[in-house]
């Protein structure tokens, strides 16, 4: 049975994929997105993260840190089990699609 169309967008996949390695701060994730050309505003990014949290794909929390004698907080995220499954499902879907594309091409050359 071929895998179903994943319920997440490519942007969300990018974020979840990054989080599958390790937990990360929101700022780090935004930097990652901007390195691949995504110019989302900060509120738009956090709105997306909030949606991922609401879907149970990631878990977010504030972490305290001290900078120049002042206490600051930053939002950090890690992947939930559901999130991990979503990443692997999406990855499998694309690999599968990629494989069938290769086969089709080979077949047409033959």
């Amino acid at each position, binding site marked *: 049975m071929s895998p179903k169309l994943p319920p997440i967008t490519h942007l969300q996949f990018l974020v979840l994929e990054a989080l599958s390695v390790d937990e990360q701060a929101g700022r780090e994730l935004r930097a990652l997105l901007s390195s691949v050309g995504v110019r989302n505003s900060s509120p738009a990014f*956090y709105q997306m993260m909030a949606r991922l949290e609401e879907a149970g794909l990631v878990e977010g929390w504030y972490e305290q840190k001290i900078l120049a004698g002042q206490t*600051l907080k930053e939002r950090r995220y890690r992947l939930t089990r559901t999130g991990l499954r979503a990443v692997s499902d999406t990855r499998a879907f694309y690999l599968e699609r990629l494989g069938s594309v290769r086969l089709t091409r080979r077949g047409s050359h033959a």
Partner: protein
Amino acid sequence: MPDRWTGLCRRLVPDSLRERAFDPAVADLRQEWMSHAAAGRGVALAVARLRYGLRLVAIAVECRRLAMNVSWATVLPERRERRVTMWARDLRRTLRMLGRQPLFTAAAIATLALGTGANLTIFSFVNTFLLAPLPARDPASLVRVYGVDDRNDRDVVSYPNFVDGRKGVTGLDLSAHAVVSARVGTGDAIDVRTVELVTGNYFRVLGLAPASGRLLDERDEVTEGAHPVAVLSHGYWRSRFAGQVSAIGQKLYVNGVPFEIVGITPPGYRGTFSAHAVDFWAPLMMHESVRPSGRSLSRRGWGWLSMIGRLQPGADLASVRHELGLAAADIQKRYPNSFPSKFDFAVTPASAVNEADREVMTPVLAMVFGFTVLLMIVTCANLAGVMQARLAARRREMAIRLSLGAGRGRLASEWLTECLCLAVLGGLAGLIVARLTGAGLARIPLPLQILGDLSFETALDWRMVAYAAALSVASGLVFGLAPAWRAGRVQAFPLLKDAGGTVAGGRRGSRLRKVAVLVQVTVSIVLLTAAGLLGAALVRQHGLTPGFQTDGLGISSFNLQRETPDVRRDLTDRLLERVRRHPAVASADISTSVPLNIGRDRMGIAIPGYVIPNGRRSVSIDFNMVGPDFFQTLGIGFVDGQSWSPRDLAPAALVVNETFARRFWPDKRAVGQPVEIIGRGMVTVAGVVRDHAYYEIGETPMPFMYIPTALQPPGSFVVHVRTKQDVAAVMKELKPQMAAVDPRLAPYDVMTFDELRRVPLFPARMVMWAAAAFGLIALMLTAVGLYGVVSTSVAQRSREFGVRMALGARPADIQRGVLREAGALVLLGAAAGIATAYFGARGLESMVAGAGTFNAAVSLPIALVLGLLSILAAWAPAARAAAVDPVVALKGS
């Protein structure tokens, strides 16, 4: 501080996104800010704060957008379109409304037209005289060149020096010019006109093309006296020849010499100095016909030419300065006697204003412009009060609209549109007023002696229009912002519930209107006090006696410089004989200069036995060449000795004043003492006369001497006439009689001595009239403004008056109360005005001596008049307040 901003911005964000998007985004921003703030101080810290604030607002705005789930790409054009439609609707509505209230509209536009018109009129002078560039092609590449010596760093030069400079410079096309006055016309139609003598390349340098015929060129600069041609200015051509092309080829008689008219300059060009309108141009080679001096162009020591040049392609100021420096050094080397210590050329970018004009005009224009700004403040304050009153009257309508869903921003924007519309219409009317006033002022005959060829003509150009537009919008904002702000804050509920107190018409609105009246009263007092102080000082000046009798004294100028000494003597004798024959003339004689006029004649003298300080051989003394009856005519009494008789030529004699006698012979009798006039020989003192004012009243006494005209008949002189009857009438009668003696005798500047005395005070008089006119306008506006304030206040407080009367107050009490309130307002404004005038009066001292001292005797009557006017203005509304029927007033609520 960032925390406070964060709290404010967070409130703007919809609830759904505060925690989900705003908080984490701001947490990131704070982290970034901390790293910047820790690093920066001073300016860097301020910039970081500003950036933080802006980004915070951006985050909040973005959150709102996200909540609406729309993209900017669709929002912005829609919003812009909506705004344009709204503006157009507001504009249409405003114009319709203004059209429905023609009286109010006309009054507001007229008020604005007065304020902006006065301001624009003065700005047109500032624009024409001080700001406008040279009316030539590519004025940026034009430069003025001056001669520099020990005494003067911006001097005129002689023709030979100009020619040497022109030859020595390759990067500059250099031309020379000199503005002079000449008698133009024949017979009775002689008048004095402004002529510019120019070199052949002058018009080429300026890059001008003729409107008709040709301009002067190199062929007109070949032989001295051989090029009697003239180019007319467009304005002179239109006024004298009615703009007919047939003028070209006709003759123009300049000092009796026929000049052929060969062309017309382009319209708008009137010379290279903005304040001096030239009537026509003639070749420099014709200088002796236009400005007889008996000198040859080749005289190296005769400096009289200004220079203007155009930088050639590839040349710059530095290279031109270098070349001219070398030329100057060469001149100095070749003519060491003419330039013993220093000679050089100075080069500056060309401006249309010469320094002398700038010095004279800048203080006058600055002061009058300041007055118009004050008038503009009164205008704006007046209209702000009027708009407040309108707002108060329409508050119910606005409350209804508000409760029906109109936005506060819309209401405010409507008010602002109305004010801006009025301001723009007022600005247009002001522009028309300014043009009419400017044209009227240009027709005022100016006294020739001091202002020469100064012209009041102004032009309407893009700077004027831009200034008018900016002034209109600024005034619209000044008088419109406060009512617009208040319109946006109308409270619907209390207004609809109760017709009584409201925000727009309530205490704050009335306070604003009171402040507006206060400002108007203050400014009116300041303007009128300035006029009063100037007027008092002028009257005082006029009342001062110069040391001789000015009543019944008349003068008339003559120029015989083209005639030989014998002809001059003969003509002068015949002229004086004719004048003395007039039955109303007591005595008459000539002199080369007139007391209390500008210009000094000085001569070097040496006194045997008197050691001059600093080892100099001679001392310079001011003098006047006078006829024997001069002292009697002016009423200058002799202290010792006597005047010389008409034919008393041997031994040559001198009359000196008391200061002269005291200084050189403190212990001896001056009469009979010898004096050496340098270059002319020895003379003897024949008499000593009383000191009088020579240049201005109140000057320090100076040594002065009188030389008999019989020694050398002067080429240009003034006939002084002492009359027994009305001097103006006698001078008027004498003018044709003097002209009839001989065609070569053409009297000009025929006037009474009192008229002449007013000439140096002309700028001060102008400033005084401007202050008086603007002050009176301000006074009228103030009275109208006060009437409006009291009327509105009475209308709003009718219920209060009703209650008070129902409780037993008498109508007279009510009326007195209203008048007292208006009086208090005026009193406060008058006190502020007098205080401002007290501290600001010093600025007037530069206009006329004695005007800078505050004089309560001037200010208090003005305040009194203003007070009376205010009572008159407040009387009718106060009477209305007293006539309020308590029953009607209480039922009306």
